């Protein structure tokens, strides 16, 4: 079985050559909407568009204006939504971190939380330092990387994000080559923040129980 990303790459190549989705469908199995989703960010050159005839040009123009309209809508939704959030108080920050721990933290064996999103990791590190009073030197950090990653570079990257010294980085776990899955280029590995403190974990789990909806 070929992996799906190989199909995606083929479809994208054909689209870049200016093929219509109908034409691509003959080469790559998949519905037109699926193909569209894979290639939505590829813009055809004016020359390619012109070669498809007047009707195609007109339809594309309509689609484009719809797209712009929708993007404006999204911007407006986001602006309105942002107004609803005030700066967090310490107590709200505590609740927010507990919520993240509920979702991503370990429920047994020390206090640890893992994620690949740098912003989320930054937020959690701050929470562990300020709310849970974990000192910098008590952090153990472990990276989960692909064989294609440069370990030293990634360690430096995450050290900058978390503001925790490289000495606290333990041995990284490196996944072996060969699963055939596509690796996303922007993926910087997954980080696990850990501190060897059972009491803290029980405390956090207590906070989480306080969040339950009665």
């Amino acid at each position, binding site marked *: 079985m070929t992996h799906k990303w190989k199909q995606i790459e083929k479809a994208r190549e054909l689209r870049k050559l200016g093929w219509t989705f109908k034409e691509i469908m003959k080469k790559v199995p998949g519905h037109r909407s699926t193909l569209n989703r894979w290639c939505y960010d590829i813009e055809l050159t004016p020359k390619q568009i012109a070669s498809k005839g007047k009707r195609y040009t007109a339809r594309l123009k309509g689609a484009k204006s719809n797209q712009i309209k929708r993007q404006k809508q999204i911007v407006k939704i986001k602006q309105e939504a942002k107004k609803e959030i005030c700066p967090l108080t310490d107590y709200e920050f505590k*609740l927010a971190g507990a919520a993240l721990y509920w979702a*991503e933290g370990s429920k047994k064996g020390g206090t640890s939380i893992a*994620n690949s999103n740098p912003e989320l990791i930054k937020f959690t590190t701050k929470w562990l330092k300020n709310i849970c009073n974990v000192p910098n030197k008590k952090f153990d950090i472990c990276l989960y990387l692909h064989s294609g990653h440069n370990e030293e570079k990634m360690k430096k990257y995450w050290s900058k994000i978390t503001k925790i010294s490289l000495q606290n980085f333990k041995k990284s776990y490196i996944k072996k080559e060969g699963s055939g899955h596509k690796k996303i280029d922007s993926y910087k590995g997954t980080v696990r923040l850990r501190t060897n403190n059972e009491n803290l974990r029980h405390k956090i789990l207590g906070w989480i129980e*306080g969040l339950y909806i009665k």
Partner: protein
Amino acid sequence: MCGKVKEKREVEKLRKQGLSYNKILERIPVAKSSVSLWCNQIKLTEKQKEKIRQMQIKSRIINSQKGGKAIAEKRNKEIQEIKYFAKKEIKKLTKYQIKIIGTMIYWAEGSKTKGVEITNSDPELIKFMIYWLVNICNVPFPKLRAYLHIHANQNEEKAKKYWSRITKIPLNKFNKTWIKHGGTGHRKNILYNGLVKIRYNNEDLRHKIMAWIEEIYSKS
């Protein structure tokens, strides 16, 4: 010279039968040092010695287990205490606080690319998020859909009923279940009730939630 002649005779008799000092003391209440004094000349046979040795090992194991249990109990009590006081720190949540908590959970577990989806196996977390969707995001409850993710060796009907009871979403709102086949058989932490995905088809709401996340992050 010593008034405990009768006891001495009894002790010697028991020792000759191969009893340990402690066993003798259980029957005849004298000081252990007296027993030792009276019996240290009595030679035991190899068989009797072996029997005492086995008894010692046995009782050592039992005692160590007792100690372990006591420590575990003490620790359990400590943990209960830590949790109790931690839980007390959390006051009744306001609507705004619930909004923030739900948003953070969405940051961790929600879908960022299409629709509004939350996937998890923790019933309390799923309950919280349904409350959040309905009361904070104003999602009409009948619009929610559920999907199960289970392994091939799990019972789909049972899992569906379980999650329907937790989420209050009727069984007919459960869409097609994802069943994972195969596996190496090494997996040990089997989630008996599988994962559940709660879905609401609305792009606008997702953009709104993403904006909340960005704002909470930038203002913290």
